[in-house]
């Protein structure tokens, strides 16, 4: 039964964990990938609604601020949003660029690297990066860690939330809710290999329709993502509501999480040890007889001076 894919040890990376998780049993576990072909997106928001419905999310009813976008941004209750951009090229040709914005499920997840709570963020063998709210302590480090500004901290329970790539559905052999709902086939799902093959087909199609710069968005800075885009203008991701040109885990986060901590921890231990051995070698600092004698002399001197009539 496909349910066998549920494997509670099938985790290749855990937040705040030094020892590696069991890695051997990855045979036959394909990495999955979600492909978002922006050139086929009509911005209908079916994915957005399907996501909320599947994950039992009901965000606040917002208001119109003069654009189709709604909700305006990701929230703890909205794990994906459609971002609409009207782009007019040099010739005055209009393009309505609509991008589905959600967790990119990086191969090297900044959130996971930054998270201090063991197991609050895990990466499964199939590539999905999942938050385990049960272990989330709400420190917000994942927010600092994410190069795509995706995680959101809930005001209700102060825990971090984001797209799970429907890990529950995927583990049960189903596609994510957003993928299934997509009316135009803009969102596709499958093994990483298949999605890259498809991405190539779609890219060639776009090139055949005059989009010379069409291409795939799979940023190397985070060692690739398990959510990839097909873009008409892959040379300018910025056109699509500021999709980062070259996202990478911030060097600050790296410095902070990388080497610093083990070294520092060691230094602390070392310091304590040094003290101890110094005591062993040099011994305590004490005053000696000569000090007491000197004190007695001083007192004697003072006394006779004071008793002199």
């Amino acid at each position, binding site marked *: 039964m496909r349910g066998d894919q549920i494997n509670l040890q099938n985790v290749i990376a855990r937040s705040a964990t030094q020892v590696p998780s069991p890695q051997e049993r990855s045979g036959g576990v394909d990495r999955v990938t979600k492909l978002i072909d922006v050139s086929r997106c009509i911005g*209908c928001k079916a994915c957005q*609604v399907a996501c909320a419905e599947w994950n039992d999310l009901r965000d606040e*009813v*917002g208001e*119109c601020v*003069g*654009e189709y976008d709604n909700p305006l941004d990701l929230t703890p209750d909205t794990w994906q949003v459609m971002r609409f951009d009207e782009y007019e090229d040099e010739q005055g040709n209009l393009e309505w660029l609509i991008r589905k914005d959600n967790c990119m499920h990086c191969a090297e997840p900044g959130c996971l690297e930054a998270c201090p709570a063991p197991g609050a963020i895990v990466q499964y063998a199939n590539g999905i990066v999942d938050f385990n709210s049960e272990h989330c302590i709400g420190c917000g480090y994942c927010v600092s860690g994410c190069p795509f500004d995706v995680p959101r901290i809930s005001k209700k329970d102060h825990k971090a939330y984001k797209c799970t790539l429907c890990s529950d559905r995927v583990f049960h052999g189903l596609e994510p809710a957003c993928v299934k709902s997509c009316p135009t086939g803009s969102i596709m799902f499958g093994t990483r290999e298949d999605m890259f093959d498809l991405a190539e087909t779609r890219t060639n*199609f776009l090139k055949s329709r005059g989009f010379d710069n069409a291409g795939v968005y799979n940023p190397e800075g985070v060692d690739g993502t398990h959510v990839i885009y097909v873009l008409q203008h892959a040379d300018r991701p910025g056109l699509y509501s500021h999709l980062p040109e070259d996202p990478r885990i911030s060097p600050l986060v790296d410095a902070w999480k990388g080497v610093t901590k083990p070294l520092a921890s060691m230094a602390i231990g070392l310091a304590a040890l040094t003290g101890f051995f110094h005591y062993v070698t040099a011994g305590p600092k004490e005053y000696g007889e000569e000090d007491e004698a000197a004190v007695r002399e001083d007192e004697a001197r003072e006394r006779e001076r004071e008793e002199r009539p």
Partner: protein
Amino acid sequence: MTNHWVDIRNADLIIAMGGNPAEAHPVGFRWVMEAKEKNDARLVVVDPRFNRTAAVADYYAEIRTGTDIAFLGGLISYLIENGLFHQDYVRAYTDASLIVSPEFGFDDGLFSGYDADNGEYDKSSWQYEYDDEGHARRDETLQHPRCVFQMMRQHYSRYTLELVSSVCGTPRDKIQRVWDMIAETAVPDRTMTFLYALGWTQHSIGSQIIRTAAIVQLLLGNMGMRGGGVNALRGHSNIQGLTDLGLLSNLLPGYLTLPRSGEQEYDQYILERARPPLVPDEVSYWRYYERFHVSLMKAWFGDAAQEENDWRFDWLPKMGVDLYDILHTFERMHQGEVNGYICQGFNPLAAFPHKAKTTESLSRLKYLVVIDPLRTETAEFWKNHGEYHDVDPAAIDTEVFRLPTTAFAEEDGTIVNSSRWLQWFWAAAPPPGESRSDTAIMAGIFLRLQRLYREEGGPFPEPILNLHWPYRRPDEPSPEELAREYNGWALEDVFDEERNLVVRAGEQVEDFGMLRADGSTACGCWLFAGCWTEGGNQMVRRDNSDPYGTGQTLGWAWSWPANRRILYNRASARPDGTPWAARKAVVWWNGQRWVGNDVPDFPPTSAPGDGQAPFIMNQTGRGQIFARDRMNEGPFPEHYEPFETPIANNPLHPDNPLAKHNPGARVFEQDRENFGTFEEFPHAATSYRLTEHFHYWTMHNRLNAIAQPEKFVEIGESLAEELGIAKGDRVRVSSKRGFIEAVAVVTKRIRPLQVAGQTVHQVGIPLHWGFLGETKKSYLTNTLTPSVGDGNTQTPEFKSFLVRVEKL
């Protein structure tokens, strides 16, 4: 749809015009994307707005709302003058060769027989020239000056590129580009499909716009072909089914029609409808009208309907006017001539034009019954909702009943999608509270009325007392019983001409061919005959296999007529019975009979040699370029301006005020007074749907409310600049009939147009949101819309009207 959703993938060119499929039918639109990817098809959008469909289109051309006839008329002329049409198809399968009566004429925007005083046409001259047998004269060479082809050519010769551009406001190069792309499909192995919806129907000239599209498709030879057709995407889930079942003022199930008051004699009534062929030996299927009619009367009145009593012809109400459509009824309601109104899952206060008039009309009712799963604005029209609906309950004496009914998830039954598929679905849970099914409610009301008439008597009680009511649970007929009833069954053994038994008494009929006019069969809707046969319920079938790879899936559900997926599919083959093109093949002649990947829309054994033409429902057997007297404003579509137009006159007939608007349209005096002028209301407005919402239901759904929470109007950047409006500002949009307030969406997607030498700004007004539900409270869009309808169907002109936009 003449074709169906999946068939769109077989098209080489998709024209989305008068519709916004990506917005209103996203899932069906999938097959457009498939055509693009798998069939290398192009998608072209011609629309006032760069809409969601345009977002994924290969080419977009802006157009002024309501000018599609000009755009397509020009195309017709372009195709003819440049010989870019499917010669053989046009000659063999259209009425191009038929000769038009010499009395017929067209002068400065008016066809022959116009009576300016009553604003009506005497259509007697709109005919072919007939020989003594009553057959139309023909000229296969298409050279005769009065043959339909030459008449059409002459009619549209006025539609030059320059003129079209100045009427539509579309730049010439864009028009030319679209025309060229369409012309490429004139060859036999390429097809183009028109996807349209209410962007074409909701105009005072709506029906004629669609006729123009049909003419184009006939010229290109795209009717009956895979990936061709004129495809109405349709609105509601079962709008197709309700139309098929004739729930319209003048219809009976299966497009049978009610008698007009003038038709007092049964024979006369049948004769009028059982149309003989106008070309020798054509099928002219309507000749069997009586079979369908009598079977219907047997289904409704059982044994009470007998030959001697003309099958109770008199028990059918007769039409005193052409139509008692909604505009007509609400006009009478407004005059105080209507006392009661029943809204079954319908929200007229929000859905009808000129809300103020609707409110006043409803207030003059004695009783109103609203049957709905949800709270509706209509049911609460008497309630004060502040600025959004400001009324005084104390001053409204209408007694309003609100009856809770089941939603789709809580009932069994079928709906007909726009592919004409009857699909059966099942209830998954009980309805909330005391809700009851619509059938139980209708039965409950009827049985009580029947009892009252039995006990108290009253005028003309017979049809009520004798209505055939064989249901096991009279108070709640089951969907199964009703489905079997509209499929039809034999009352006696039925034999064919050779005395072969066709169907046994008591058995379900297999198809409408088994129906008889002698009272031996009963059938509630001949068009649906075959949906529930002795083989059982065909509508539950779930075999989605597609052996020919054509997308016909004949084993899925059941499609009317006779499980046929592409209408007129005989036209996909040459007169000699071989397909026009292998990649477009649907049916073909195998030497003995018609076979193929679809159910042939043709007598199965009518050999090509017999020369019968493919359009078997038409008296000519041919596609009608010339509509004869079937349309109220003329046999050839002509462009007329919307009743609220942003320009001074009709550029085609600047000097003839009678030809400014549709001369055949019906306008009530008070409504005419409520038309605005472009001097006072300079902006051309159009109303439409958004994909996040469905009319006035989804505002009751949290999930959809989140996706699109508040009312907005779309304004082009240049107009916004002119009016000092910034994105997100609140604006007031006023028409002669009232005003609404909403948030401004300022966009590059609506551009100003150069029309007849002036700049026209268009304003987009989504129709959603109201003062109930989960979304932000808002005004109803139909506060603004005018109360005037299409010349034939009386569909209100929601798509073209005038407003004034102001910053608040």
